[in-house]
């Protein structure tokens, strides 16, 4: 019995690398499951068992191979000791890992919570900024609405232009027929100076950069001529000068105002006229203006206008079809 058992242990050491057999003979395993090592079975029985068990046969065969070297092999089982010693280390390692893990989780959770706080703070800030932006955009939109713009322009003494006039900057040619804008002395604005513009609030600030604020003391004829000559066109310069002359006549009726949409040169022109006109009297209304115009070379058109009212079409009575 003990011989076989020894063989068996030998077997274990010699075959410890054999994965198929190792588990079946692990030290803790109840030997009773293995008939080949059941100590309660008598020799004869064991023989039967061994003979009837192919596995047992193999043990015997293998055991026979290493039969003589039983003792030295026993020593080699000893790796159990270092294992035991490593348990302490293992425990420390495991505890350490656990501790690190828990601390990490704590840190991650803290930073997540911190992140959540930051997010909600930033979101609040974002909302506030968005609201501010919206409020500003809305007030800009309200001020930029055509009606508000017109009111502001009128408050500055501007009036809509009655005929569109263009200055071709390339040729210096005036396209369209310039005509004094309607308006009375009462609505004449005080000309904006850059100082006024900067003193004014909000939208008015934007006007500081506009040529409307150009120096009102310039001589109109000089500027006209200069503008045209800069374009290198003598004829245009002459035309501009003529224009100034005809505008001179118109001033008796009304001062000029212009729409701000025009090219810079035109606006400067207007500003100058305004400046010149501001020194004169002129209380003509719209009607007076028309009357004055009849006198000059634009009279033909005005005459036809006056006649127009009488010659209009009529209509006929038509039965319902």
């Amino acid at each position, binding site marked *: 019995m003990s011989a076989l058992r020894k063989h068996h242990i030998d077997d274990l050491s010699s075959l410890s690398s054999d994965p198929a057999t190792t588990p079946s003979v692990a030290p803790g395993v109840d030997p009773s499951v293995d008939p080949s090592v059941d100590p309660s079975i008598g020799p004869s029985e064991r023989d039967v068992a061994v003979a009837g068990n192919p596995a047992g046969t193999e043990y015997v065969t293998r055991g026979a191979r290493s039969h003589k070297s039983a003792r030295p092999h026993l020593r080699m089982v000893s790796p159990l000791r270092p294992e035991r010693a490593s348990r302490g280390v293992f425990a420390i390692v495991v505890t350490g890992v656990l501790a690190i893990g828990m601390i990490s989780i704590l840190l991650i959770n803290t930073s997540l919570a911190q992140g959540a706080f930051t997010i909600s703070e930033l979101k609040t800030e974002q909302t506030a900024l968005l609201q501010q932006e919206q409020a500003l955009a809305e007030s800009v939109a309200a001020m930029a609405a055509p009606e508000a713009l017109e009111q502001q322009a009128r408050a500055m003494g501007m009036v809509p232009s009655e005929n569109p006039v263009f200055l071709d900057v390339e040729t210096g040619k005036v396209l369209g027929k310039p005509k004094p804008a309607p308006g009375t002395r009462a609505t004449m604005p005080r000309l904006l100076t850059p100082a006024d513009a900067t003193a004014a609030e909000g939208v008015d600030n934007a006007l500081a950069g506009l040529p409307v604020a150009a120096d009102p003391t310039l001589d109109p004829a000089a500027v006209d001529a200069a503008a045209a000559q800069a374009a290198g066109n003598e004829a245009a310069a002459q035309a501009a000068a003529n224009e100034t002359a005809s505008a001179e006549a118109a001033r008796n009726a009304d001062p000029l105002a212009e729409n701000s949409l025009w090219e810079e040169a035109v606006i400067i022109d207007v500003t100058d006229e305004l400046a010149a006109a501001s020194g004169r009297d002129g209380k003509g209304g719209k009607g007076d203006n028309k009357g004055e115009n009849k006198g000059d070379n634009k009279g033909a058109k005005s005459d036809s206008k006056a006649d*127009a009212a009488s010659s*209009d079409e009529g*209509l006929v009575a038509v039965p319902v079809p």
Partner: protein
Amino acid sequence: MSRTTTRTAPATRRPVSRPDSGGRGGYGRGVGARGIEMANPRKRGTILLIVTGLLLTLFAGRLIEIQAVRGEALASEALGQRMRVLEIPAVRGSITDNDGEPLAVTMEARNLTADQTLVTDPVAVATALGPILGVDPAVLVPRLTGDRRFVYMAKSLTPETWNRINELRLPGIFSEPTSRRVYPAGEVGANVVGFVGDEGTGLGGLEYAYEDLLTGTPGEMSYERGPGGRAIPTGARSLTEAKPGVDVRLTIDRDIQYMAQEAIADQVRASQSDSGTVVVMDPRTGDILAMATAPTFDANDPGSADPKVLGNRALTEVFEPGSTAKLMTIAAVVNEGAADAYSWFKIPPILVRGGEEFPDHTPHGTLNLTLAGIMAKSSNIGTILAAERIGGRQLERYLRKFGTAEPTGIVFPGEASGSLLPRDSWSATSLPTIAFGQGFSMNAVQAASVFATIANDGVRLQPRLVDAFVQADGTEELPETAEPARVVSSSTARQVRAMLETVVGPGGTAPNAGIPGYRVGGKTGTAQAFDETCGCYRGVVASFIGMAPIDDPQLVVGVFLDNPRNGRYGGELGGPVFQRVMTYALQARQIPPTGTKASHLPLGG
């Protein structure tokens, strides 16, 4: 333990078991054979087994019930307890003018609410709220008193106003986020853009027509929240972004629209008309640059407006066009080669057709007029004589080619397309009547489109009101438009335009519509208006439709005044409005004069 058992048991049982048989059977029986001592543990084992079995069965049953039978319901209930779902409202698309200037935008807003049970001192709270809301505190007190837990105090406050209220830390005063539709330009384009109701859905105009596109699709955010209400960082969460509504960019130019509204409003007042309409078109694209009506309303406050002014007359009302339609008749005659601008017509004082007498507006003896003269002086008799040269069938064909009684193609709620009887149903007086623009109807846009066709060298373009649909990512989708269709030849169009120029010239019916420096042309109309309430003709529609520059038309402006009491004629009432709007539009579009000389056509007399 097991080891001892196995070692001791065989010792005692061996004598007994041996004769029997070896192996496990004997082992089991051996235990039983041990009698009274072993009976207890065995019974205990059995009982334990049964009890355990029962318990396990019970557990298993419960497990199956929880996991399999009610599993889903329970899981979702549990999730529901910690899951919070928030709807992310989709921002309604904006409506802008052709330059991207806002006509209708959606802004954030707050509804002010109160929990009456938490308001300890209603008077103090009302006194604090009153000045901010601009309401008499006495009105607020009843709404703060009582035991209702949710009462609306004010709706659609700006976030700014809410911030001011919030800073007061008033007990029982809360807010809920919402949105409000803002029309920064107020009345400008209100008749086109329309308006929304209290729930923010479009109730009029394009807000109504494009409701589905503008609305967008709301998104959803869900997250698991802890007891504190804060989101569980590692919990399940999902976010479906809201799909904002599509922006609609119109062809309307906000500035021209404003000028047109001002001009027509002034003239409606001055002429004491029931209403007025202005349509401004770019004939080269079909774009409607302005579509103004008067009186109109403030889109920010449609509730306080007369319901009658909430529509868009330019599309929803039809009228008999009158003399402006002579353009179609004369273009048809010229295009068919039946006459040209220089063809002479002998105009009798009265023309009798189908037993009816057709006079001209000014009594005259027999006149000799060219076709141009007929146009310039708006002679009914001359137009009838010219129309008879091509006959009713051709006249009808041309009227329909010009778009009469056909939808404009503009998507707009309640568009009325007018009507024109088919040729087969015409009576003896139909041809002469229809030739000078009575007996059929069209809306203002259709009427302006006829002139745009002549302005565009005889090719008719579908009028456009929507320039593009702009998606949130910036991609643009163009609305479908009908194919351009040639109505008359370009030489016909040129000749007709020259005739239109004579109308604003000396001897024409609208010399006050001219613009110094520019060559303009147009046609006056003073049509009898059919009043459905009496089934008779009562009042007139005075109109003027014109274009500039006449030798290269880039703008068409149509002016219509309904039932004027102070004044009557299209040239007299519509001309000045045309001049004012056209003058501004030429500047705004930066269209310089062409510098060419006016054509001089013999008119006769």
